[in-house]
């Protein structure tokens, strides 16, 4: 439409010639789109490594006793898998990649508020990641504490805990700066006519996420510093031998790490909220309810950390209060699910790959969310605490939710990012394999967890073997699906057909500009609508 004339003249951000050449044009780039791709490549690499580590764990668990590795290696692998996946993949994941790329475009801005700080955040991220990787290879061996670094074991074990915690500290710093950048961007960089309530809902979810990043991360930072000081100088805060309190560490840890779950899932919910109206060609149902539920999740999510510690030793009152709050935080999530379904009602549904991923997000996230209530109520928690039920639950949320949300975003915005299209048939096949593999991998863990299979155990009773075998087969299928998906996307980026400006007939701002976007996003001032989703 309006782009017909500008297409010829504008230079895309991929071909833009700046001060630097070759790889330097990327690693010195302050353009938010290039930084987003830097994050994309780094995070995808870590994701694949983390997934392979996960598969190794699954292979070990295919039969009781030692199968392919020693117990200590297993401890190291589940810790590394956790640290990489949590701190290097899912926490930065959606907000650093798609937030960076699309937040400015969706609010009609040319870049984020602090472009150089944005690049600096990426360097901090890479520094933290290098430290995390180093912690695996240095002399005293990979940390074996689990990603939660629970004291007092973490203050006593001889492995590289200091490196791993420093890595998490540095990564947290990157997360804070990214959040800060996005908050200021949303407050100050919106196009003149773009009001808060005419923003699309992805920026809303990024906004809520950014506040959690800013308000929660300092707590983990100071906690990790205390842990490091504990190991270096024996300050005694978490060591009962000196009067300290290990439970205090758990509190401090979860004050951050529970909100961190919402740092992971909120942007994914934002992506789903973009995809569903586009592929149903319907105005989103309950715009304000969805926007506000993001803020509600961010707010209440702060106050529920105690549900990780129901068996650790807390007063009866604290336990029921945390349980009640846990149930309350489920409400805004459910508001979103019902609004998505209501948006689809009477829509003209077009089952393209992004929507397939979005729908499987809703399915998997609902299972994860409802099993979260089993964990959130006090009586049932005692039965399933620290069993593979918990493992299944948070993988349904983190991988089924955030992971599938990530794949959905990748397939949805792919033509905009690269200006090329991937193959739909192969994308659908990869999706099917991923979806089947995922459920085979994690659903059996719910069942054997109920029956009493503890999490993080290296060995188990023979009665759990059937569940573990099915799960491992699921894991192999999942990895195959993953590689098919990546292969399809790489092929698409390199050789795919040229994508038009608006392949999905979307109504938000990113579809009004050419694919891939020009260096400064908008060659002319974008047309801002009151409601970003006006399909009727």
């Amino acid at each position, binding site marked *: 439409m309006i782009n017909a004339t500008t297409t010829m003249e504008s230079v895309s951000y991929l071909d833009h010639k700046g001060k630097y050449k070759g790889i330097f044009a990327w690693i010195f780039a302050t353009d938010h789109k290039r930084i987003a791709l830097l994050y994309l490549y780094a995070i995808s690499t870590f994701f694949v490594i983390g997934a392979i580590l996960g598969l190794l764990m699954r292979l070990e668990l295919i039969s009781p006793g030692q199968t392919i590795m020693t117990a200590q290696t297993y401890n190291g692998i589940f810790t590394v898998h956790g640290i990489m996946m949590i701190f290097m993949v899912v926490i930065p994941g959606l907000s650093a990649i798609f937030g960076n790329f699309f937040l400015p475009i969706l609010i009609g801005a040319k870049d984020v508020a602090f472009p150089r700080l944005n690049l600096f955040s990426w360097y901090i991220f890479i520094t933290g990641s290098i430290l995390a990787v180093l912690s695996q290879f240095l002399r005293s061996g990979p940390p074996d504490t689990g990603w939660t670094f629970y004291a007092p074991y973490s203050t006593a074990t001889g492995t590289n805990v200091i490196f791993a915690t420093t890595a998490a500290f540095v990564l947290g710093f990157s997360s804070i700066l990214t959040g800060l950048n996005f908050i*200021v961007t949303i407050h100050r960089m919106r196009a003149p006519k773009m009001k808060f309530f005419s923003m699309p809902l992805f920026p809303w979810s990024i906004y809520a996420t950014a506040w959690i990043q800013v308000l929660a991360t300092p707590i983990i930072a100071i906690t990790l510093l*205390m842990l490091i000081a504990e190991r270096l100088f024996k300050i005694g805060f978490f060591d009962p031998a000196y*009067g300290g309190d290990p439970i205090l560490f758990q509190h401090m840890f979860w004050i951050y790490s529970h909100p961190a779950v919402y740092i992971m899932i909120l942007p994914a919910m934002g992506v789903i909220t973009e995809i569903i109206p586009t592929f149903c060609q319907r105005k989103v149902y309950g715009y304000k309810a969805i926007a506000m539920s993001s803020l509600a999740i961010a707010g209440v999510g702060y106050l529920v950390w105690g549900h990780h510690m129901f068996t650790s030793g807390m007063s009866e009152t604290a336990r029921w209060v945390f349980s009640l709050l846990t149930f309350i935080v489920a409400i805004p999530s459910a508001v979103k699910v019902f609004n998505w379904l209501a948006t689809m009602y009477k829509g003209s549904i077009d089952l393209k790959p992004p929507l397939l991923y979005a729908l499987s997000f809703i399915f998997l996230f609902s299972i994860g969310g409802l099993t979260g209530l089993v964990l959130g109520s006090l009586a049932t928690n005692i039965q399933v605490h620290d069993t593979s039920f918990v493992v299944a639950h948070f993988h349904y949320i983190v991988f089924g939710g955030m992971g599938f949300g990530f794949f959905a975003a990748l397939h949805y915005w792919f033509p905009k990012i690269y200006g090329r299209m991937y193959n739909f048939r192969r994308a659908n096949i990869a999706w099917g394999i991923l979806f089947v593999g995922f459920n085979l991998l994690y659903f059996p863990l719910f069942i054997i967890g109920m029956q009493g299979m503890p999490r993080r155990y290296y060995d188990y009773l023979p009665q759990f073997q059937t569940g573990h075998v099915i799960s491992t087969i699921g894991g192999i299928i999942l990895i195959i699906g993953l590689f098919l998906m990546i292969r399809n996307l790489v092929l698409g980026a390199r050789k795919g057909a040229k994508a038009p400006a608006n392949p999905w007939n979307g109504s938000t701002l990113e579809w009004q500009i050419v694919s891939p976007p020009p260096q400064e996003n908008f060659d002319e001032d974008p047309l801002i609508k009151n409601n970003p989703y006006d399909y009727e």
Partner: protein
Amino acid sequence: MENELIHKEETRDDTAAKLGMWIFIFTELLLFGGLFIVYSVFRTQYSREFHQAALELNVTIGAFNTIVLLISSMTIAMALTALQKNNKKLSLRLIGITILMAFVFLVNKYFEWGAKFHHGIYPGSELMMKFEHGHLLYFSLYFFMTGLHALHIIAGMVLLSVIFFRIKKGIIHSEKYVFLENGALYWHLVDLIWIFLFPLLYLIT
């Protein structure tokens, strides 16, 4: 090149820069907030030992340092006003005094810590390991909190030095002073945290 300059001028947004700084300051407060939680937990648990241990700190040195930091906060605020009124020389002099005050604070801290070290009180020392639990935790908190605060003082000094040279070179001037303003905000934060640490560690016994 000239185009680029004009472009930069167009996109300059001082309010955004200040908003960013305020949010950053908030994260710093939360960082220390974590320590205040730990402090209050142990204070409740070991109130008797905390009472005795706090008596071992020298209130005079602490009070002197408090006054030093309060004055430095004033001088940096004056430096900003001076620059806004286009008095570059006075502004530079006031920033110099601020950095000097920070240095005085650190020297004081050095002697205070040094005396404690001399008596064998430092984290992980043999003597401290023999302390009563509350006593040990009090001094761990003392070293951790004042140590982290001293790191912030050093960071503030580096920041103010950068600002000093930028004003000298004319990069920061009476029309464009948001960098100095942010630096001053940061310095007030460092001061503010000390205002909390001083009573928590020295005055409440």
